């Protein structure tokens, strides 16, 4: 794990919107072009980390970059929430380039 900790540092960080919901939390991540299976969610105490990798793909033969601004490769975003998240239920949903992450907290009483 130590190895990964250092070498696996992400090189970009997606933007996120956080909503309070009746049952817990909803976090929107600006993560277009990332396959859901490339995403990993880690919960530790009150923080929740979404990390993964955005891979580029060749759309057609012979196309090559003229310029590039989108960040590829590893990303990571850690969000700190004002409550303990252990035992919370995580649900991921990709929608039009936005990743929706729902946290349903037990005993949460909004």
């Amino acid at each position, binding site marked *: 794990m*130590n*190895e990964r*900790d*250092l*070498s696996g*540092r992400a*090189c*970009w960080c997606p933007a996120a919107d956080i909503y309070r919901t009746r049952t817990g939390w909803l976090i929107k991540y600006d993560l277009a072009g990332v396959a859901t299976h490339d995403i990993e969610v880690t919960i530790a105490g009150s923080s929740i980390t979404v990390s993964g*990798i955005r*891979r*580029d*793909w*060749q759309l057609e033969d012979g196309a*090559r*970059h*003229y*310029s*590039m*601004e989108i*960040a*590829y*490769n*590893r990303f990571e975003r850690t969000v700190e929430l004002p409550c303990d998240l252990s035992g919370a239920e995580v649900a991921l949903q990709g929608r039009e380039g936005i990743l929706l992450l729902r946290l349903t907290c037990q005993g949460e009483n909004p």
Partner: protein
Amino acid sequence: MSTAENVQTLPILPIKNTVLFPFMLMPLNVGRPASIAATEAALASEEKELVVATQRDASVDHPGLDELYSIATKAIIKKMARKADGLLDVVLFGVERVVVLKLETAGAYQTARVKPLPLPQEKSPEIEALRREVTELAVRALAFIQPQATEDLRRLVAGDADPLRLVYMLAPLFGLDIEKEQALLGASTVTECLRLMHTYLTHELQVLELRSKIASEAQTEMTKEQREYLLRQQMRAIQKELGGDTPEQTEVALLRERLAKADLPDEVRREAERELARLERLPTAAPDYHVARSYLDLLLEIPWRVSTEDLLEIPRARQILDEDHYDLREVKERILEHLGVLKLNPTAKSPILCFVGPPGVGKTSLGQSIARAVGRKFERLSLGGMHDEAELRGHRRTYIGAMPGRIIQAMRRAGVNNPVLMLDEVDKVGRDFRGDPAAALLEILDPEQNRTFRDNYLDLPFDLSKVFFITTANTLETIPQPLLDRMEILRLAGYSEEEKVEIAKRYLMPRQLKESGLKPEDWLFPDDALKAIIAQYTREAGVRQFERAIGRIARKIAVRHAEGDTEAAAIAADDLTSWLGPRRFSLEQARKQLPAGVATGLAWTEAGGEVLYVEATLLPNGRGLTLTGQLGEVMQESARAAQSYLWSHAEEFGIDRDRFCKYGVHIHVPAGAIPKDGPSAGVTMAAALASVYTDDPARADTAMTGEITLTGLVLPIGGVKEKVLAARRVGIRRVILPRENEKDLSELPEQVGKEMEFVFAERIEEVLSAAIPDLNRQVSRRRAAS
């Protein structure tokens, strides 16, 4: 995790002179074909990864494995843009430390087999101590490099708790050399890395401190002027950035442009260029800057060579002169003579005229009229009350606030070097310890000297010889002789009643009508009303009060018009009180009858002529001659001469010689409060004395003037016209004049000459016999008896 899993094959990008550390961003310009190919290959991949390795030798173009440091950094391309010349701008982000195992060629670029080389994670008090020490050193060193950003950097540096990241972040900031940076990247433990960084930082800090010390020492050595110069240069640079040229540069450029266009004599151009060169070197704030600038302005504005063309058509000039002024034949002739001369000899010197006459006779306006007649510009300056030579000649430029003299200023205003320049009130120039302006005038008014007139401020010769100088004065008495000598005196005597009426009709009335906005048909102004105004409301040789009275009437009519009464106003001679208020002067009348001992004299004053009576009376048991009435010395002497002459010729006039011994005599000349002087009352004194000694009264209808000598000669006097007019004004129609003044009668208006009877005398006997009728009888009786 097996080793084989971690080994990757990635395109390799060799870089020169710098090291990419993990976690750091680095903008890079990719230019070598192999590097471009390697970057393209990375871009085409899903993860945009490549290996960045530093070359040991920057001059090698295609480095092999030996020529690259084997410890390199895996990086991903964050951004990329192609430039027009085919090169690539990329932003790389260091991901992790790798070791290059092998290079392989893949077409146009090389790939490297690399294996991650993570540092063992350690935590120890030593690492923490080193971290703090490095942070401290870095903050101190950064204070030298970027003083203005110290606070931000301190927060950034102190904020990162990870020691390795701290080192990687600091390394590029201090511009360490490649070996040191590569050593940092290649350190095998965190402790080693921190120790190295500590050593480097300590060294860097020492160097920085030394540099700063050297710089501050150098600064102290720099003199104050140098610093000011430096600051000024910076200010100039800023001004230039802000808005093109600096103001003073545009100013100098403007002056230079004007200088190039100006038509200047060589000597002046040289001086102007010298001054301009000086101006360029001066800072704007220097007081000398403005001195030099206004001096240059003056040099460029003075009409060194500009002159107007004279209009030399004599008929036209005559017409203009006649239009503007009535009579004044002598002066007009003189002007026309000069025009004639100029026509034949264009380089003729301009005359220097001096108009002498009472106030209000039109001296100043005559100057304007002359300028108009000859087509020159007109400038005037008043010398009245001037008592500082510097006012005429200027101050030297060394004085603060120095200015050119009035003459040069007048030339600047005129804009040409041949104006008509009128110097008013030349008889009222003062003089005191500051100098004598009249002495400066000597140079200005001398055609031989004024060709190179030197103003103290200008300090260059200016040619005044083309200027048509006209001076004016009320009297010649106070003008110094040398100055008088340089000028051609033209007398403007006072006007007679008829002349005044004529002047009123031609000039004053139209002018006052125009000023009040009336039309000529708005009033009926008969001549006798004008004459009544002259007699009852004015006492002057000129026409100023007269014009004011006419103006007053015009304004009264204007008020009536404004109130709706637009009927023409008739002004009658006997109704003047309703227009002008009570009369101001009672009609001056000659005394109807003179007792023995009184004779009528004529005097000349600055305001024209006056009639005065000389009264003499005998004092029984008195002694000598008593004179009262504020008589000057010359007048007292002529009284004595008159008495002595009568005494010595007593028998001839039938006077008892004892009367001279037994009686003293008192002579009084009213009005007693007005000082009187001059020799021209000599004959009047003699007549009064002869009358009192013989007890025969003098004729009341006869006035006289003339200087006498002890041998009984009658000498000519001045101011004949004014004196005759004064006599006529009070109703005297007979005047005794010295024979030599006969020629002056041509000055008189024809009408006056016809009305008056003149007796010309060469000897005092002729005067006395003309003045005292009974004396004739006595003398003839005596002659018959003998």
